């Protein structure tokens, strides 16, 4: 402990619907991340501050917030990188705020389920037949997209999400693409129906900010463009197949 820094924290009371910024000055240690500062505030200055967090190691994706105007994973961002401050901490944009720094995840979870983010099989193989095997090369095609931790920073950064509430969004579309690429999966056609809908991949204007803010370098923007290519290929394939079947 030694140097001091000021946090300007967004406060919101859902019952009164009143919002404000509250300043908290505190001493910090050099290795503290933004989340440590918030935990210090809650533990020693104002216990009523509400924020979401869990693993503190960039795995659970719970502590995404807006830090000085930029979507940030607060457990992976050092206070020292924002000195001399003040450091403004706000809830993720493009989400309804529940309280202080906590946002409502219902819409995101609904969209997540909509895309069937699991391995879909036409017919499940019996357990005694063993696992579905996959080569390292097959794994490599989608491994990058498995690294998503659903922190939703990409939703906060996406200008399309801010204007089109029904847009499925970067993380969920990336997850859909991840399963479509999985050699064990057989649900691509079903998933593409959702992904090619008016709320799907074609709403993406390829700003690319989702990939910039992604703490895991998943590249959602790239995944969505690749899905567009897959969607077009699927369309022409179905066109050729239906033409062939008419003859």
């Amino acid at each position, binding site marked *: 402990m030694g140097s001091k820094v000021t946090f300007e924290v967004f406060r919101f009371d859902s019952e009164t619907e009143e919002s404000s910024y509250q300043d908290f000055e505190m001493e910090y240690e050099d290795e503290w991340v933004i989340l440590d500062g918030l935990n210090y505030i809650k533990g020693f200055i104002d216990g009523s501050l509400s924020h979401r967090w869990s693993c503190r190691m960039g795995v659970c994706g719970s502590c995404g917030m807006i830090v000085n105007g930029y979507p940030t994973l607060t457990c992976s961002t050092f206070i020292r990188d924002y000195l001399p401050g003040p450091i403004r901490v706000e809830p993720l944009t493009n989400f309804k705020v529940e309280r202080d720094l906590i946002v409502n995840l219902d819409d995101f979870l609904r969209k997540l389920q909509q895309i069937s983010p699991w391995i879909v099989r036409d017919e499940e193989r019996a357990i005694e037949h063993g696992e579905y095997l996959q080569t*390292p090369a097959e794994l*490599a*095609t989608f491994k990058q997209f498995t690294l998503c931790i659903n922190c939703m920073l990409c939703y906060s950064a996406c200008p399309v999400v801010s204007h089109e509430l029904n847009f499925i969004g970067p993380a969920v579309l990336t997850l859909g693409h991840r399963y479509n690429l999985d050699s064990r999966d057989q649900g691509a056609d079903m998933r593409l129906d959702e992904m090619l809908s008016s709320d799907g991949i074609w709403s993406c204007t390829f700003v*690319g900010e989702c990939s*910039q803010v992604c703490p895991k370098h998943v590249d959602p923007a790239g995944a969505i463009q*690749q899905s*567009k*290519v897959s969607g077009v290929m699927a369309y022409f394939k179905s066109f050729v197949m239906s033409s062939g079947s008419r003859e």
Partner: protein
Amino acid sequence: MRRPRYCMVFVREVTAIFVVAYVIVLLSLVVSVGGDPESYEAFRDFLASPGMLVFGVITLLFTLFHSVTFISLIPRGMAVWRNGKRVPASTIAGPGFVVFAAVVAVVLLVLLP
């Protein structure tokens, strides 16, 4: 405008308007070629006016910007795999730039005296 990337995408979209406008000018030129000689000469004079020259220079710059950014983005949408490794972006975008430069060179050779 707080985020430069938002601004860049906006500028890029706007450049498409100039590209479309230039296509309209070209189509108008084709129509005037099919008409009488007087109207063709009048259209040529119109194209040589200072305003159209400025428009042409701006359109050229915007078209170059649009083309370069478009080719640069191609590798993001094309995941090509070889021997279990993703083909580098430069290998995919490189031929695009080569073809683009070749087409520009051919057009310049034809147009320039």
